[in-house]
């Protein structure tokens, strides 16, 4: 009986140790990386806001933040995985963040209504036309470059549907 208890205890202990190690390897490590990545993104964002407010730099704050994060990634490539972890949900669900602004359409309906036809033509027609022209021009300009296949190093965290 005593032998069984000792065996059980030892087994339980080793299972617990393994679980803790696993948690350290996957859970805790990932969580720490996620926090580091989030801090990097938020830090760059707020540094961008600060730079925007304290200088007369003509660039918008989020763009300054983007450039800062890019510089940070080049300086220490080790944080790439951390940034990838925390930026994946932001990049994947960017569509969600447009919803409040999109609903603002109704606020300016009377202004829009007066020039509805030309505005629709500019917003839908011109956009589609310019999209086509730009893509066509780009495919001609990049024509000789198409055969080169650049190895993709993504893990598909930007969404793949």
């Amino acid at each position, binding site marked *: 009986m005593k032998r069984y208890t000792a065996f059980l205890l030892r087994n339980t202990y080793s299972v617990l140790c393994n679980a803790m190690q696993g948690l350290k390897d996957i859970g805790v490590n990932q969580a720490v990386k996620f926090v580091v990545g989030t801090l990097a993104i938020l830090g760059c964002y707020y540094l961008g806001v600060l730079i925007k407010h304290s200088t007369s730099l003509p660039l918008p704050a*989020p763009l300054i933040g983007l450039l800062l994060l890019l510089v940070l990634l080049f300086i220490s490539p080790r944080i790439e995985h951390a940034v990838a972890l925390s930026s994946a949900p932001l*990049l994947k669900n960017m569509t*969600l963040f447009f*919803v409040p602004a999109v609903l603002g359409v109704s606020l300016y309906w009377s202004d829009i209504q007066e020039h509805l036809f030309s505005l629709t033509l500019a917003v839908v027609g011109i956009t589609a036309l310019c999209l086509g022209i730009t893509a066509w021009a*780009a495919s001609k300009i990049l024509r000789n470059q198409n055969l080169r296949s650049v190895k993709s190093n993504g893990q598909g965290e930007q969404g793949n549907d």
Partner: protein
Amino acid sequence: MIDALLSSATLSGILWLTITVLSYLGGLFIHRYAGGHSLTHPLIFTATVVGILAFLSNTPIVVYQTSASLLHWLLGPATVALALPIYRQWQQLMHYGWRLAVSITVGGVITPVMAWTLLWMSDAPHAMQLTMLAKSITTPLAMETSAQIGGIPALAAVFVILSGVAGAVLSSITFALFNVTSRAAQGIALGTVAHAIGTAKAIHMGEDVAAMATIGLCINGIATAIILPLIILA
């Protein structure tokens, strides 16, 4: 963030955030169920459902926007997060070099010029014409740029987002019409002409397309945000 958190941490804030996120999940489900077709873009379903619910519950859109301001705020950090795809595709950017810059310039110049010309010919108000000049760059940049040149920032958001939706929804048809099969060219056009919504669409098309769209979005955004005030205010 504090302002956005406080206004979203109210009862109506939590309610509208929940409604928006649930509608978005529904929109995503429909989008996936339809095999990722452009017309089932999650934004259309989400905005329609939330808009109908706001109308039925007699909620002014300004109240909704305050309640869901946390979502709008996240657009800033999400823009910062775009640094990652650029970093990862740096080799490709260096490889294409001036060709990429010229391609982006084509879209960055013809889009505002054609849109402005159309509004100018149809005698639209001056502020509206100026606002239309910023229509192909990402929302936060467009709002700030239009404010600088005497346009209407709020209207800029509407034009920009509708252009993005139109670009994202019509992209497959347009690329087919113009017979463009190059994924790089499609990405450049989506990012340059349809900004962040085009990029969101490109992200769903694959990381290589998304990287090109992101480069188009960023280069056109920075260039337009700097050059436009210089031209208009000079």
